[in-house]
């Protein structure tokens, strides 16, 4: 377990900023307890400092997870956000997309969101923007990247893709091995 290097931090924050913008500050400067990011086996974990200190007593080969896993660095140092980060992303998200009930299940199976399934979308969402996807009951389902801006979405026919799928909660069942 080690703190992130400068470069890694930069890459990581850039990726995060695509979804939560400047709210990253809230992740670090929390009012209740200081939290930190740590790297363990190419995975980035977000954990309170007190717990992190305790976890140092577990050996490097034996420590698997601490706190919340945000994602992992690939071999070529690209950062991939995992669905496990959803809670924090959803908390601080700027752009949101709501999916109709008929569109929930296709999304949870890993498909992209079509115009027919789109329920609501925040105003002035630009194209290729990271968004969090909610069900109509305001339950976070995953996140993705918009294919079209909000204005363009209005003019589309029902079968066009509006949001590209990046991660969804269904991966806990489909892809359990790789989630963590």
């Amino acid at each position, binding site marked *: 377990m080690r703190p992130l290097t400068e470069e890694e931090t930069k890459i990581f924050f850039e990726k995060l900023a695509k979804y939560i913008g400047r709210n990253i500050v809230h992740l670090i400067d929390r009012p209740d307890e200081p939290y930190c990011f740590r790297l363990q086996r190419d995975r980035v974990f977000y*954990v309170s400092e007190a*717990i992190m200190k305790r976890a140092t007593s577990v050996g490097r080969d034996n420590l698997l*997870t601490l*706190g*919340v*896993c945000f994602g992992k660095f690939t071999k070529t140092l690209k950062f991939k956000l995992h669905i496990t980060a959803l809670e924090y992303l959803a908390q601080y998200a700027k752009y949101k997309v709501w999916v109709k009930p008929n569109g929930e299940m296709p999304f949870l199976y890993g498909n992209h969101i079509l115009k027919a399934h789109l329920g609501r979308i925040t105003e002035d969402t630009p194209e290729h923007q990271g968004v969090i996807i909610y069900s109509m009951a305001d339950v976070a389902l995953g996140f993705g990247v918009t294919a079209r801006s909000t204005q363009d979405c209005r003019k589309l026919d029902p079968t066009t893709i509006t949001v590209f799928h990046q991660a969804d*909660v269904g991966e*806990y069942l489909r892809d*359990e*091995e790789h989630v963590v």
Partner: protein
Amino acid sequence: MGNRGRQANSKQRDPAPLNDATIARITGVPVGGNKDAKPKGKRQLARDNKKAKIDAANGKNGGRHQQPNGNGKAAARKVEASSDAEEEEEEEGDEDNVDELAPPMKKAKAANGAAAASKSTKEQKAAKGKAPAFVKADEKMVEDEEGSSDSDGWVDADDVDSEDADMWDAAELDSDDNDGMLDDEFDDLAEDSGAESEAGKAMKMEFGSDSEDGEEGDEMEVERQARELDEQAEEDAQMAEEEMQTNIAQRERFTLPSGQEVDREAQLTEDVSLVQTRIQEIMRVLNNFTELREPERSRSEYVEQLIKDLANYYGYNEYLLEKLFHLFPAAEAIEFFEANEVPRPIVIRTNTLKTRRRDLAQALINRGVNLEAVGKWSKVGLQIFDSSVPIGATPEYLAGHYMLQAASSFLPVMSLAPQEHERILDMCAAPGGKTTYIAALLKNTGCLFANDANKDRLKALIANCHRLGVKNTVVSHHDGREFPHVIGGFDRVLLDAPCSGTGVISKDPSVKINKSDEDFRLLTHIQKELILAAIDSVDANSKTGGYIVYSTCSVTVEENEEVVEYALKKRPNVKLVSSGLDFGREGFTRYRGKAFHPTMSHSRRYYPHTQNMDGFYVAKLKKTSNKFPGKAAEPAAGTPDHATAAMPAGAGEKAKAKQTKVQAAGETQDLGFDEAEDETYIKQAEFKRLKSKGILLHPRTPEAVAKKPTTKPVLSAAEREAQMIAEKQQKRSESKAAKKAALKRLKGGEEIEVDVGDAADTSAKPHAAASSSGAAAARMPKGKAATQTSQGKRSPASGAPANGKRKRGGVNRPFYIVSGK
């Protein structure tokens, strides 16, 4: 035989004369009947064979009891209407036991038996003259046989009765006592009272019609047919009765199969219904053992047979079944086994970190799930009755609003009752149901360590933790026994130990056959080690905690009470406390000769057949002190500086640290360090430390300058002296010889280098005081070259080898004597 019957059918037979049997039947006097010159039908032969069999059975049992005819028959009538299935079973049983019955006969009998029972109930009700549709070919034939020869049929009926009388008398085995039993039995067994009374009526009708002997010719065709059908029914009923009677006779004297029979049965695949019957019979016997037993068989033999049969019936291996059988009284044991065949209801636990039970229930009901709160004992559990959507794949599940968890798994966490901001350890955490429940109770505060030894299952644990939004968890992959070496000082520890799984047989039936004695020994060993590790990982001085909860999903005593008892013995600083669960059966304080601590009743046992949840065991322990009187060098777990981990033994650097600790421990008198024993190790450590600096310490006489320090025990000065003298003398003599040889060689021209240690010889006398030896040594020449031959006055120092070899390059290292010891 069948041919004969058919052929006989076509002939017109003369009516048989009145014989003794008929008379006997009419008058009710038992007589040994004589079946004379009459071609036997299938049925007749069947009956004869049956009689022979019964005689054989009687012979086995001594056939000592006689009974007045009427009584038995009346009782028998009552029984006639007992369940068809049983009757058939009995028939099957009989037939299996007696091999001489030819298969066709068996079938006929079976068919007749079935038909008889059904006929007796149905045909009485059916309109007269209406033939039941299900009559089989055989029966039809037999019926024709009976029906076509009117008078013969009539006579046959008489004969049947008389023969019944014979068979009945012959079959009578019971004493008057059992008569009473019989009646009680039949009251219990009689299921169809309607048929019963009708059967009785049928009998009466038969008797009534006897008086009409010789009137056949005057009847109308229809009446005749009707009568024949009735007779047929009567005969079938009679047959059934007889069979019932014989079976009851056997039943009342249920005999355990002998060793040979058991072996034979073991080789053949036994009929399941037979096994079931035997189980029920043995249970009956055991319930009223004094009356129903066979005198020469002991109770344990019955129980043994019962265990074999239960193992056969339910599919367990005998070892496991015996173990489980002895946990309960016999009837309850069968309930337990029955309950293991049926799955327990599905239960889910609301994740209070993300939602409320009310809201979740509403959402699931909207999806089409039929559910209900699991009970008053839990505020987060929901029981699922049925569902149109897969419960493990709803969007709510994926969002982490609930977790699929067995009801029994709630219990250890409820017992543990973690408080916020505590440090909790879950030693065997995968797949994470209990861990996430603990995290929910902690409300994501404090610190939760989840550990498991199985890497694959850890993936599921991690996934569940993330899915349910648990933020304060550290997941590690250690063998649980490594705690507290890894980290200790927890407020509470939950140990859900790996077990044999005898409580979750309904989930995993393979447990029935793959558990052996070896498995149990291995498992209990691991469990005992784990519970000690769990106890040592807790900080007894924690303000809010100091609790350990031990739980297993097993019902055996070896894995539950015995393990807790072991922990209580090995760690006097823990005690059992109330588990906090207000339902469930108390743990055993005594079991089959083993006695446990009386507080064992605080632990709780759960069973599938009583609480309708998986078999489970929960025990809560409280640690009262971090130290316990025991062996020395036991690491004091939970002391504030536990981070220094275990103390290494005897390392030079730490010797001083140990000294201080020894002093500290000496004050508390709890740890019990052994001062004398430690002394040697401390000295050795000190010597090594100084040696590494280049300081050689010699506590003994100067002669021992180059002597290697050994780990000899510390001797007193006098002892040392004596030892030294002896050694010196020995070596003196050795080296003298060597020196002489060397001298000779020298004269021959060789140069030999001998160690300077010889110079020590000058002060030959042993010095009493160590200090004087030190002083003498100081006088020795320093740094002299080794090429100094001795003139053989004194033997070289005992350290110098007598044969003149160099020692460490032959140079004597300079040494500085620190104040002698």
